[in-house]
């Protein structure tokens, strides 16, 4: 069993000691002076006593904390007074995050967090260890390492090449995947049995240009609060001076203000808002730059790993087999410039969450076509049956082939034509009127609020009318909102999008669906509208929502999603049984049917009594192997109820009557 780093014990001891020490100090003063409970000499002792207790506890905690990473699990025992023992099976680990915030990094320490699918908080935290140790833990707890361990227990050549190449080649009978183009992508038996090539390839690395653009276009939610913090620090002076420039003297008091003429007031308000937004933007730029400096995304087989940060360094892993949804984020500015950001959500506590409101973490900013390409690859890799067919409709015909060497020639994203998504179905037309009404009601409430405020304070009553100025914009706002909402069903996924200022496009593979919820608020019922939510296990964002469609459409969608979930899961079960059967028969397990080419003959023997759901074994199994030839029509036809050889499948969709 290992211990945490001694330096972290020292830091924690100092911290704990200072905390309790100062508590003792103030407590002592209070008790001695104010409450006169204790004589001064005794009270003076409380500070060092507190210090000793605090430091002592932390030192004790250090000595009582131990962990061990074995092949199967992570074991953590801790606790000074009450002992706690936690065993986390490595299978359950979704993400391993290593963070090195400024102070810890300066001290040469790193914090490791293990996240699992259960619960919304971190399962185990090692605070803090040596950076090399942190990297080792991150690597060894991931799916890649596990597979290699299993592989070394197995025997065939195919195993090794599968482990490294499978993720890359599985979906792509045709068309190279940007991600898989690395040297070892060619999975068919070219690795030596003993060679474990660590083929990590860099999928994406942010260029200086992109980092600058990213900083400029991101608005981090945290930044909205920071200017207020700056006010007592001298911001107040700036504000006063700025307003004086416009002719308003804040120090004269509110009653004075009420006597100023409306134009000056309006100018003042505008100036104030402008200054605030500028401050927010500047803070955003700095924060984003610091946070995403040196961003890199690497792929090792079935695992993605990102790394970022200038002052504090942060990294995290994303196991591709556990991907729940993929989310594309584009704010207004990004859309204009042709960029997008990507977030890959797993079932654990949002991968790489650091309270990111702005940039998504898997790819903070990239040329839109490239990002879509990567999204497709990630989704394809996440379905280990290899049957995921990322729909072409996700992007237009001009999606580029892969991440260009963004460092080298810093292409302007504007050169790539903005990709249109014609296939999205919009919400119902009447939803637009609904949004207009919603905005007007909102503005009305603001007016009422301002009116009330003007009664109680010195605010001029005219201020209550300010929201009315914005009212004519509501139809435009409603239209924009409506236009950027939509959904699209493909064979294997549901794609939804929403938001104008920050458009989020979510792609949910159907086999990740958990529950389907059709909801209608009281207002939606008046407008005969409904919303459909496709829930998945990823805790960030909670699933894809289809807004404001007609009730019939909502019901259709609900049924369709459940159907396709059923189909998809049957497919996966069959593929899994295939794999197991092949492994048992000792043919060298091939995770992706694409790799092996001897399948059609073997399938004739596959007859399982319990397959009450799949009466046509041969046809459907051939479909599984046919996939290897990237025969997309095969999949499509099967789902539609027609075998590759043309005979209709009764399938398990037998009528009940």
């Amino acid at each position, binding site marked *: 069993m290992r211990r945490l780093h001694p330096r972290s014990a020292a830091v924690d001891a100092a911290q704990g000691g200072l905390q309790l020490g100062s508590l003792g100090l103030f407590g002592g003063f209070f008790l001695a002076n104010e409450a006169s409970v204790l004589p001064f000499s005794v009270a003076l002792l409380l500070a060092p006593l507190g210090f000793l207790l605090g430091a002592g506890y932390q030192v004790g905690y250090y000595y009582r904390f131990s962990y061990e990473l074995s092949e199967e699990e992570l074991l953590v025992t801790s606790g000074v007074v009450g002992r706690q023992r936690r065993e986390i099976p490595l299978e359950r680990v979704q993400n391993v995050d290593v963070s090195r915030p400024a102070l810890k990094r300066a001290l040469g320490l790193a914090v490791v967090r293990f996240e699992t699918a259960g619960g919304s908080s971190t399962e185990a935290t090692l605070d803090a260890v040596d950076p090399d140790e942190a990297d080792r833990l991150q690597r060894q707890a991931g799916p890649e390492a596990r597979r290699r361990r299993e592989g070394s227990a197995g025997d065939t050549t195919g195993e090794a090449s599968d482990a490294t190449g499978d993720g890359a080649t599985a979906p792509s009978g045709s068309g190279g995947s940007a991600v898989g183009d690395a040297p070892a992508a060619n999975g068919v038996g070219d690795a030596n049995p003993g060679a474990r090539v660590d083929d990590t390839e860099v999928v994406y690395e942010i260029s200086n240009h992109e980092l600058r653009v990213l900083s400029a276009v991101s608005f981090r939610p945290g930044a909205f609060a920071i200017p207020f913090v700056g006010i007592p620090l001298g911001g107040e002076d700036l504000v006063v001076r700025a307003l004086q420039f416009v002719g308003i003297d804040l120090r004269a008091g509110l009653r004075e203000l009420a006597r100023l003429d409306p134009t000056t007031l309006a100018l003042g308000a505008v100036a104030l808002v402008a200054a605030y937004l500028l401050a927010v933007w500047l803070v955003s730029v700095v924060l984003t730059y610091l946070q995403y400096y040196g961003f890199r995304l690497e792929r090792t087989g079935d695992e993605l790993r990102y790394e970022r940060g200038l002052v504090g360094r942060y990294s995290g892993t994303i196991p591709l087999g556990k991907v729940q949804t993929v989310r594309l984020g584009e704010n207004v500015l990004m859309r204009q410039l042709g960029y997008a950001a990507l977030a890959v959500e797993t079932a654990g506590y949002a991968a790489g969450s650091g309270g990111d409101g702005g940039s998504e973490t898997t790819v903070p900013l990239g040329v839109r076509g490239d990002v879509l390409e990567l999204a497709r690859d990630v989704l394809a890799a996440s379905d280990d049956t290899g049957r995921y067919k990322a729909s072409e409709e996700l992007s237009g015909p001009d999606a580029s082939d892969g991440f260009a060497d963004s460092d080298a020639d810093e292409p302007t994203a504007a050169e790539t034509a903005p990709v249109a998504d014609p296939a999205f179905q919009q919400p119902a037309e009447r939803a637009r009127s609904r949004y207009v009404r919603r905005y007007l009601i909102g503005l009305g409430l603001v007016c009422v609020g301002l009116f009330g405020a003007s009664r109680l304070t010195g605010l001029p009553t005219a201020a209550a009318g300010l929201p009315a100025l914005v009212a004519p914009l509501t139809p435009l706002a409603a239209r924009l909102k409506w236009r950027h909402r939509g959904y699209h069903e493909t064979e294997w996924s549901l794609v939804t999008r929403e938001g104008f200022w920050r458009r989020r496009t979510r792609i949910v593979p159907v086999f990740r*669906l958990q*529950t389907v919820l059709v909801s209608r608020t009281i207002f939606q019922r008046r407008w005969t509208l409904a919303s459909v939510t496709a829930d998945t296990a990823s805790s960030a964002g*909670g*699933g894809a929502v289809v807004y404001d469609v007609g009730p019939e459409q909502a*019901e259709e969608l609900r049924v369709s999603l459940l*159907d396709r979930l059923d189909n998809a899961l049957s497919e996966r079960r069959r593929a899994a049984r295939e794999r197991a059967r092949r492994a048992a028969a000792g043919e060298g397990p091939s995770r992706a049917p694409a790799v092996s080419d001897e399948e059609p003959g073997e399938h004739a023997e596959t007859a399982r009594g319990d397959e009450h759901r799949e009466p046509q074994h041969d046809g459907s199994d051939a479909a599984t192997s046919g996939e290897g030839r990237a025969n997309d029509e095969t999949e499509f036809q099967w789902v539609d109820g027609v075998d590759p050889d043309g005979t209709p499948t009764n399938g398990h969709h037998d009528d009940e009557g």
Partner: protein
Amino acid sequence: MVDTNVCLRRFRSPAIEPLTSPARLRNGVQLQTLHPRVRLVWIASTLVSAGFLAGFGVAGDAFGIRLPVGPSPLALFGGLAALVGLMGVVFAVLRYRVWGYEVRDDSLYLVRGVLTRRVSSVPFVRVQHVDTRRGPVERAVGLASVVVYTAGSRGADITVPGLTPDRATELRERLRELAADSDYDAV
């Protein structure tokens, strides 16, 4: 769009303009309703909140706290308490009328919600486990709930309240069986 001819009929409901009529039979979809006494359970919880509010009022009055403008704390909080209580009763009645569930071939189908009507479909393949639960009020009234757990983030725990203990046990066992039979695939 998917060719709907192949769609499983068993998922279909003739449905559509769902959930406006409180009848047991809604647009041809037969739903199980809850036990009428569940309304008491719901009302009881609002009464607790109302009680707290009234308590604040009484306490405020006792301490002699007065707001600069407006009625005395007792009147204010008392009024609020009465309002909350009344609304609680109304909501409980409406909720009871809306609530319905059905165990279908491949999923659990639920209808609930007064302000926001929610129709949930929980596929059995996604059910992790099923519990029965009896809170203190439920026990007093002689009812129980069944809780269905999935891995989802929004609809993670689905509770079917207002069942008699026998019915709850029966439902729980049935759901467990269906979940087990469906070749459960968690995530």
